């Protein structure tokens, strides 16, 4: 089994998800099942096949470099969705560098 509880822990930490210790084995088992599904890819010969990152065979459009005005009323609407803010700033628990 490649999805051990340790793998789950490491991946959850990468993804910033707190998983209760008690759930780890169950999650590992479900992820292992998904892994078995996606492992089927390894049987497909893909030598010399180009990757496909995107369905559109177009190129990136460019935007003209023009700045739009911004005002505090607009900013305050954005801040309203913030769980915690003060003095126009979003707040998080103190970050120690």
């Amino acid at each position, binding site marked *: 089994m490649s999805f051990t509880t340790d793998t789950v822990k490491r991946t959850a930490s*990468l993804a910033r998800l707190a998983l209760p210790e008690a759930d780890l084995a169950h999650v590992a088992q479900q992820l292992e099942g998904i892994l078995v599904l996606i492992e089927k890819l390894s049987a497909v010969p893909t030598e010399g096949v180009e990757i496909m990152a995107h369905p559109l065979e177009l190129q*990136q459009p460019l935007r003209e470099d023009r700045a739009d005005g911004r005002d505090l009323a607009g900013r305050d609407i*954005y801040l309203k969705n913030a769980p915690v803010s003060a003095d126009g700033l979003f707040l998080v628990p103190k970050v120690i560098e």
Partner: protein
Amino acid sequence: MSWEVVIGLEVHVQLNTQSKIFCSCPTRYGAEPNLHTCPVCLALPGALPVLNAAAVDKAIAFGLAVGAEINRRSIFARKNYFYPDLPKGYQISQYEIPIVGRGQLLLTLADGTEKVVGITRAHLEEDAGKSLHEAFSAETGIDLNRAGTPLLEIVSEPDMRSPSEAVAYLKKLHALVRYLDISDGNMQEGSFRCDANVSLRRAGEPFGTRAEIKNLNSFRFLEKAIEYEMERQQDILESGGKVVQETRLFDANKGETRSMRSKEEANDYRYFPDPDLLPLVLEESHIETVRASLPELPDAKKQRFMEAYGLPAYDAGVLTSSRALADYYEVVAEGLDAKLAANWLMGDLLGALNRSGAEIESCPVPAGQMRKLLQRIQDETISGKIAKEVFDVLFEQGADVDDIIERKGLRQITDPAAIARLIDEVLAKNPGQVADYRAGKDKLFGFFVGQAMKASQGKANPEQLNRILRERLDQPS
């Protein structure tokens, strides 16, 4: 056997576009917190990035200026990590295929020798916001005004072998981006920041393990940080230890680097192509349009200054070290004595700027006034010495050169009769010295020059004064 330091630099240059790289928020520095934000740079659900054309052109301009390959097709990727000033939880950057490939930069070192430093690549990416740790006691405040400002990250080869080479490279790069007008290069405001990769090895051996020192925002800090790091690593190596590959921060107050333990934990950025952005494809004609708009570059300008103005390499190098200084020089020197102009700019003007902490861009003396000052020397309205006095007034108070000369009565005395009168008075006052001189004490000539010049308040034309004085002294009484 001594240690050799190996240095490579990663420089983050904020591009001076009007708007951010993926949205139309202004990039202006110093606004109210979070004023310059929108759904895109706040990473609101559903908001999508669209690439700024000017950021692309500025990256191309840089690539052309360092003789780099411009990739006809480059890809934007996501660098995934969590940090409060990174609103999307990933930074849009270029990873596998950057817009600018290999290029190089030619340095002139302090001893006059030249050195080529390789540029590995330069890629477009977005800047993060700012974390304010001081404003609140228990919290960190997040200001996303800077989030999404376009950056060009310029990565050098590990080609530098001393702190001073690293500084020379960074200065050259700094001058170049300002020449190209792709960045304001303001290091205090963080528009031009540098990470240094530093390792030690015995000469000829493979590279040692490197430490990466983050966010050096002055030339002096770069130098100090590398010097500290060299000592630190040498101590480790010589006591039989191993240098750990890690990220370190430079503490400018203590002059030392320290490990950023927190950030090291599981650095797995999970890069993959950003599905919200398509490949950036550049037509040949697009690149040629940018090429045609490039200004004269520093190396070419230096060469031209040497040829057109007959300046020595050193002078040409100093005067072309910034585009603003070079432009200033060209206004001042046109049709005048080019070496005189060079001396004045390199000596008096740069000295005064240095003392007042100003840059050539904010020089209180307009180039036209500086030029007029030198003209007044050349047309003998004032002497070189008086000119320094005029310059000091000009630098401190501004105003017009001719007005200063008139107001202060500094116009040079060129009337031979007036000068003769002054000399006669001096000789009359110092009969003893005159006798001694005539008895063979030649050295006293300088004394008389000084006295006469003093009597003229420095305004006497020096050559005339010399000539008439000699005539008078040598004439038997």
